[in-house]
């Protein structure tokens, strides 16, 4: 008899109705925010930027239309329509304009834009050319830096085109002291200024900005109170009338004053969560250790029933799903699934190193099971003293198959943070932001999603002597045929990495300056220590801890490629570097529908008609040199002939027989033990492939006075950025998906989940202090029954004992995913783990769906 698994109750009808309202809504763009902020900016052109931002927030909070949803107990929404989104033109806008006609039908995350909304947005956008953070960042960047981005080496697109977000603020402070307390604090700090330091001028404006913002935020809550009263007056159902009346009372109490009940605490929490996302478009506004700062309010509420306390919490869980954002069509492939990454956690240890699990931790697991939607990103913290009961309960939730909770290992993350100079007590308090990024809550401006850096692309460029296709993008570090051993190749890879990481740091810092100069955020800053003490915004370095965290993906692709080259080229000598190079440049003999292989490497018959125009400078130089050394003079006809024969000689068109040869080379390269099978050789070389990146990144500093730190997670960009990467020596064909995060390549971990997780654990996650991401997929049968639960918990403990940092699970049959892909209309409720977050499966782009389906499934 199974007794370890406790099972989950059904949510209330109210929660079910709220959930259906979101699934039934068509995400729609609203124009109010864009219009209002444009109007505000026009009114404040002469003011310091921090006051312009405060005035803008004031206008937004005073004038954006508000709504109370049917059935809800907690109020506050970004849009009048359910699951809609606003536009933030001060960061960037042209992509919205370009997508007016296509956003409703695009592959990933479609949004409706009604015609009149498009018109209003268009009018607002007329103000913004040259004035956005994005425009300023671009004007700071050098040409090589822009080239590297245009060629898919990395993107800083997240903060380049949007707000930064990626923060956990001091929610607890608002619930303890109210906005009135924060206003008092700012007033007191302002009163202490005596004008003796020039900085006082700026500080004074900062405090004024905070005061304006928090007064407006208080009034905003009162607008909701008034609306609730109004709705209560019209309401005929006495039960709902009473609820609305109480909701009005709540909105007059919080967030202005301290919360006196659990309901008010949740309402106050929600206003903070909401206003952060009105002020800026930055995503990954993460509630962090919710069970820690919220539990005192639940414990103190002696009158509330357990059921109602749970229903209120479930309602908060729903609210996370109502907030929505749109991004450009390309970014949305990287962030597929309407995800805004509000990461919320429970469990772990407190600052004194005592286990912090409390009754709310368990209630959060229940809410996640009740609501069973993509948001919030739900995580648990694990450490050696995590109670078995809590781990089993978390595993039971994983078994439901929604992809959460993700699990984070204190035993790795705390030392990793201390290695970045954070004291022990603060490190123990870490929370998770966005996908997988640890930070000290309300003390950090972590810039965690600073870039996607495609290290597989760096290998691709290394194999072509710094070229991307025909373009000399990086330094010349040697042709592939000239590498005599793996060490030489890795040295070249390292030199390319140095070059491109330098450009990455430049790009990030350009964007950082743009936010500092054009988008300091007063509402956010007052809730991050020690902005009020220092009298400046987080964008100007007001936070205690400052980082920039660009993350890599393609680690396994590079490790596997190095291992395959070592085995088949240098050890067994079955293939030469020249043959491998040729095979790569012919996509291993497989068709390339994009035609890019042809363009890049010029293999086909059309190349035999090559003219001087078609040649790049280097090739012309080589040809001229050949003729000169032979003849001592130049005959232009001979040059033309030589170029033609030269190209046909070295790059013969791929005949059928050649295609088989190339395919055989692919088969040979694939006869390699891959990363993910607990084989020390390939695991070590994969670790090195990743560490070369991480060590390079951590050399750099940002303008806020902080350090760069690498992460290793892809969101879903491994699919998108795979489209820029030519064939790799591991047999991967051109433009196909890369490995996600620190996971083995899809389908390559064939020795079972213990071997796979031990490989992953070897990567030295401590260096990737911006977070690592490991996906495991289990068939439901592998986890069935109490025995399955125990084994699952054992696997987690074993992985963490071996210094794994993060792991998350998809527990779903492949067949179920394939079925959902075929009949999306019947599977709107299917939630899966994509990367550092879960998403509605049917909302994902087909390629992302395929990538999830192809992950190795561990079964009996």
């Amino acid at each position, binding site marked *: 008899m199974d007794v370890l698994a406790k099972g989950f109750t059904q949510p209330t009808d109210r929660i079910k109705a709220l959930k259906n309202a979101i699934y039934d809504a068509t995400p729609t763009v609203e124009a109010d925010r864009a219009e209002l902020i444009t109007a505000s900016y026009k009114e404040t052109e002469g003011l310091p930027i921090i006051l312009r931002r405060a005035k803008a927030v004031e206008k937004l909070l005073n004038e954006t239309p508000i709504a109370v949803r049917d059935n809800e107990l907690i109020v506050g929404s970004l849009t009048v329509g359910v699951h809609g989104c606003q536009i933030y033109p001060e960061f960037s806008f042209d992509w919205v304009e370009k997508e007016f006609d296509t956003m409703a039908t695009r592959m990933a995350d479609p949004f409706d834009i009604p015609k009149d909304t498009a018109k209003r947005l268009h009018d607002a956008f007329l103000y913004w050319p040259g004035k956005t953070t994005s425009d300023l960042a671009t004007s700071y960047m050098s040409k090589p830096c822009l080239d590297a981005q245009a060629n898919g080496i990395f993107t800083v697109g997240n903060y380049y085109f949007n707000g930064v977000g990626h923060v956990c603020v001091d929610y607890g402070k608002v619930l303890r002291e109210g906005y009135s307390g924060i206003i008092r604090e700012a007033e007191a700090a302002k009163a202490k200024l005596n004008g003796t330091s020039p900085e006082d001028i700026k500080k004074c404006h900062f405090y004024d900005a905070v005061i304006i913002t928090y007064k407006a935020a208080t009034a905003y809550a009162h607008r909701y109170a008034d609306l609730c009263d109004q709705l209560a007056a019209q309401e005929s159902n006495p039960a709902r009338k009473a609820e609305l009346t109480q909701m009005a009372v709540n909105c007059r109490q919080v967030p202005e004053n301290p919360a006196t009940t659990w309901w008010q605490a949740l309402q106050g929490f929600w206003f903070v969560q909401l206003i952060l996302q009105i002020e800026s478009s930055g995503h990954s506004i993460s509630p962090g250790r919710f069970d820690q700062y919220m539990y005192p309010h639940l414990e103190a509420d002696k009158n509330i029933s357990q059921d109602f306390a749970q229903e209120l919490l479930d309602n908060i869980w729903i609210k996370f799903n109502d907030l929505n954002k749109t991004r450009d069509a390309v970014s949305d492939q990287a962030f597929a699934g309407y995800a805004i990454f509000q990461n919320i956690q429970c469990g772990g240890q407190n600052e004194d190193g005592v286990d912090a699990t409390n009754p709310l931790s368990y209630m959060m697991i229940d809410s996640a099971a009740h609501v069973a939607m993509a948001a919030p990103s739900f995580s648990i913290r694990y450490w050696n003293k995590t109670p078995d009961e809590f781990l089993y309960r978390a595993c039971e939730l994983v078994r439901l198959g929604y992809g959460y909770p993700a699990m984070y290992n204190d035993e790795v993350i705390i030392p990793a943070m201390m290695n970045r100079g954070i004291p022990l007590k603060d490190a123990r308090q870490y929370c998770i932001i966005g996908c997988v990024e640890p930070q000290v809550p309300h003390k950090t401006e972590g810039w965690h999603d600073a870039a996607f850096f495609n290290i597989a692309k760096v290998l691709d460029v290394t194999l072509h002597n710094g070229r991307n296709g025909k373009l000399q993008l990086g330094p010349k570090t040697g042709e592939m045929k000239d590498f005599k051993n793996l060490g030489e190749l890795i040295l070249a890879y390292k030199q390319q990495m140095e070059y491109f990481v330098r450009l990455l740091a430049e790009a990030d810092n350009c964007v950082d300056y743009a936010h500092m100069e054009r988008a300091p955020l007063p509402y956010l800053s007052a809730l991050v220590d020690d902005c009020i003490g220092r009298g400046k915004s987080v964008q100007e370095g007001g936070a205690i801890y400052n980082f920039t965290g660009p993350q890599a993906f393609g680690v396994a692709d590079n490790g596997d490629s190095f291992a395959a080259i070592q085995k088949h080229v240098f050890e*067994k000598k079955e293939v030469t570097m020249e043959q491998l190079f040729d095979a790569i440049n012919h996509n291993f003999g497989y068709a390339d529908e994009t035609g890019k292989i042809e363009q890049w490497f010029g293999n086909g018959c059309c190349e035999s008609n090559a003219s001087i125009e078609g040649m790049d400078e280097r090739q012309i130089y080589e040809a001229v040199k050949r003729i000169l050394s032979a003849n001592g003079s130049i005959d232009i006809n001979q040059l033309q002939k030589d170029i033609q024969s030269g190209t046909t000689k070295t790059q013969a068109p791929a005949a059928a027989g050649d295609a088989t040869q190339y395919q*055989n080379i692919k088969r*040979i390269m694939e006869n390699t033990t891959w990363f993910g099978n607990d084989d020390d050789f390939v695991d070590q070389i994969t670790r090195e492939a990743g560490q070369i990146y991480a060590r390079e990144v951590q050399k750099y500093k940002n303008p806020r006075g902080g350090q760069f730190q690498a992460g290793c997670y892809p969101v879903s960009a491994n699919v998108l950025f795979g489209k820029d990467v030519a064939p790799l020596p591991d047999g991967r064909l051109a433009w196909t998906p890369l490995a996600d995060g620190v996971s083995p390549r899809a389908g390559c971990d064939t020795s079972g*989940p*213990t071997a796979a997780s031990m490989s992953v654990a070897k990567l030295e996650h401590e260096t990737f202090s911006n977070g690592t991401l490991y996906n495991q997929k289990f068939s439901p049968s592998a986890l069935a029954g109490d025995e399955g639960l*125990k084994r699952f918990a*054992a*696997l987690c403990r074993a*992985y963490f004992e071996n210094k794994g940092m993060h792991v998350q699970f998809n527990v779903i049959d492949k067949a179920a995913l394939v079925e959902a892909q075929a009949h999306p209309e019947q599977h709107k409720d299917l939630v899966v783990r994509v990367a550092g977050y879960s998403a509605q499966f049917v909302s994902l782009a087909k390629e992302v769906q395929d990538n999830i389906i192809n992950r190795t499934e561990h079964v*009996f």
Partner: protein
Amino acid sequence: MSVVTVDYKQEGDIFDIQRFSLNDGPGIRTIVFLKGCPLSCWWCSNPESQRRRPVVMYNEAECVHCRRCESACRQHAVTFTDDGVRHFNFDACTGNGDCAAVCPVGALVMKGQHIDVRSLIDILKKDRSTFRHSGGGVTLSGGDPLMQADFARELLKACKAQGWNTAIETEGCAEPCDVLDVIPYVDHILMDIKHMDPEKHRTFTGVSNELILSNARKIAAFSPLTIRVPVIPKFNHSEKEIGDIARFAASLGNTECMHILPYHSLGENKYRMMGCEYKMNRLSVASLSNEELEKYRPIIEQAGVRCRIGDE
């Protein structure tokens, strides 16, 4: 108190190591497959296990016809015709592995590895955390591990010395002294009883069952055991035959469980890869499902033995 020593230099032959096994003893386990089996069951899904010496398996689908093997083989067991069709003379093959060593794509694979206890323990240690947290350990399978009794004994002792749980999967067709030599180091004994009729047993497995049944009694006198029965159509797939085994299992007085496993033909391809006949094809029978074995549950339980079916 006497000092227990382990001979870590003891060597043996294995053909596979499988991690994350959930069905061959408690917790999460690693199975070490030892080579050599006194039986040659028609349905055997590991035919490469039967001979003690290494065997070469050839997967034609993987072959790229590079003919490296043809030049490498001193016995000329591998030849190609002019049109590229490959022939493998399995009888001429001595299993020295020269061909597999030069095969660049893994179409030719050597099954069989000579290894000492020390090296094997180092490999098994990769899962020590998993063993510890799951209460799992190491299961010896085969072939029949008792065919290499000295190696099996030292390996099991070495596992116990690591604090791991041990299990063995055996046909029980070995010298009684070998059986008694090994089982003191085994926590869980999984023993196959395939049929109660000696002649039918001989026809389908190549040996009579008398030694097996007598060994079962010896083991039962010493230790609890699980009786495993592959249910094979036209061999023992009847209420009478399974019932007879159940009653025998009950009579041992120390049977924890009778675990019946449905016949599957997943091993068939391996016979092709070894150039051998898959005799089950003579019977033209299909694989069985767990559900088809449910009817045996009441019979087994009625005999007084706990019943387990398939991977439940």
